[in-house]
């Protein structure tokens, strides 16, 4: 009962703030029976507190549902039948209690505030749910389905209406009602949580509004977005309409690419024995053509290797066919490189060695090094090599 007392205190403070007409009867009710009051306050407090906070309607609804869910667990009622009876009689679901009036009025306030947001359907269902509790959920669901069918006419809603009719007969036990009401509240929460998607989708298409179809719709939108991206990627796919044809196109394209790779690897396998002669030139062309500026800057930042950068910078726009000189420089530069790029270097391997550092350099802190290198250089010993500055912006064309 400590919980109940706590809530009574809460209620008193909040009701004073509210200054509603139901203040006195509710208080009387609280004083007369602490047990009932605990229940009623448990039910009513979640509404009153958000009213004071005057947050957004989403917040209010969520608060209401969360507290209802936490304060009135179904197990409590199942374990204690007397408690369940009392809960049924004295909570907001009974009409003849004063506390119920208070909740009604509060809910009406809620509804009025909610209806300002244009979300009238859910709110109407909520008010129905709270005021007409004796009529059970079926009426509520009817109202929902009515609201739906007034706007949308499709098979799903008709089936909903049928279901609600069939459920009308089943709801006779009060405990069930309460649980169902909790579920209804959760449903409302789900509906209010993604308000944007919900409104957006419904306004456009007028389809089902339950969570599953919402999620499905979002998924479909994502997929179509991806398909558009793929359409841009695959050549000749722009003219094609229809998902299936487009998928065929994509599959064909990927397969052709894979076949191309296979073909090229076959050719390369035949050519490969000759490769040793060309290897160095190839690497120098492939690697350093694209990243010539890098080579410069790495060397320029080193003041100890003054002779080499000059040699390279003298021909900035040519291919680096002087690749044979690289290993020595790199070896001398290695500690510095390791320090700079803070990356583990692969083992030294003759000429090929310089290249792994270049990409890492390129990716990590190239720009800073570039600027540093140029700044140092032009201030210090190589004023005549400013011609390589445009080279640093050279585009990579492999």
């Amino acid at each position, binding site marked *: 009962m400590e919980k109940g007392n706590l809530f009574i205190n809460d209620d008193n403070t909040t009701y004073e703030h509210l200054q509603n007409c139901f203040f006195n009867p509710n208080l009387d009710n609280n004083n007369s029976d602490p047990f009932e009051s605990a229940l009623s306050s448990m039910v009513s407090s979640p509404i009153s507190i958000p009213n004071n906070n005057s947050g957004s309607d989403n917040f209010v609804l969520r608060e209401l549902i969360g507290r209802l869910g936490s304060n009135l667990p179904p197990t409590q009622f199942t374990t204690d039948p007397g408690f369940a009876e009392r809960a049924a009689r004295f909570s907001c679901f009974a009409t003849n209690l004063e506390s119920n009036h208070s909740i009604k009025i509060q809910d009406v306030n809620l509804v009025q505030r909610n209806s300002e947001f244009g979300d009238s359907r859910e709110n109407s269902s909520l008010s129905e749910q709270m005021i007409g509790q004796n009529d059970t959920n079926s009426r509520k669901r009817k109202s929902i389905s009515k609201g739906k069918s007034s706007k949308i006419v499709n098979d799903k809603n008709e089936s909903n209406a049928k279901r609600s009719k069939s459920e009308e007969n089943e709801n006779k036990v009060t405990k069930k009602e309460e649980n169902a009401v909790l579920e209804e509240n959760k449903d409302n929460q789900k509906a209010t949580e993604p308000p944007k998607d919900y409104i957006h989708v419904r306004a456009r298409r007028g389809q089902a509004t339950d969570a599953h179809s919402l999620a499905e719709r979002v*998924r479909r939108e*994502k*997929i179509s977005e*991806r*398909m558009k*991206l*793929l359409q841009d*990627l*695959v050549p000749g796919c722009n003219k094609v309409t229809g998902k*299936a044809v487009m*998928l065929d196109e*994509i*599959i064909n*394209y*990927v*397969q052709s*690419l*894979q076949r*191309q*790779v*296979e073909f*090229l*690897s*076959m*050719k*390369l*396998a035949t*050519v*490969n*024995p*000759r*490769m*040793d002669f*060309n*290897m160095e030139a*190839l*690497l120098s*062309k*492939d*690697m350093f053509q*694209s*990243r010539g500026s890098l080579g410069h800057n790495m060397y320029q930042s080193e003041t100890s290797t003054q002779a080499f950068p000059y040699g390279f910078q003298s021909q900035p726009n040519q291919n680096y066919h002087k690749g044979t000189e690289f290993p020595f420089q790199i070896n001398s530069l290695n500690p510095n490189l390791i320090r700079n790029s803070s990356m583990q270097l692969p083992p030294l391997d003759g000429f*090929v060695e310089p*290249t*792994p550092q270049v*990409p890492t350099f*390129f*990716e990590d802190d190239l720009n800073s090094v570039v600027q540093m290198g140029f700044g140092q250089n032009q201030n210090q010993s190589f004023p005549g090599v400013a011609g390589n500055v445009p080279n640093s912006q050279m*585009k*990579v064309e*492999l």
Partner: protein
Amino acid sequence: MTTTRSCIIRSRFAYRFLHSLRKMNQQDKTNSRRVKHAAYASMASVVGSKRAWSRAVLSKIRNRSLLLKKKKKRRRRSSDEFGELRKIVPGGQLMDFYNLLDETADYINSLTSQVHVMKNILNLLST
């Protein structure tokens, strides 16, 4: 931004691929299958473990001997209408459709750059 990224990927792929080709050449074990494997492996390792398809390729390469030994029959969603695409994209068997499309886009990108680089290398070698 994408161009610079693809450039980085291309150059890295070229480096790795050439390196493995060179190694292959030194060991005198060059055949087309090996070259193809090398191409795929270097592409996947360049792309890294961020992408599902590269992860699939890498794990396939690493566990090749294991896969040869015991051919497990996995449960496959063959009833899918997009099963064709799943078969083509590595690692596509276990993805949902949205991720499959995502991976396909990335895979196509890297395949095009791969083909580009390989063509260039072939040109340079044959001349």
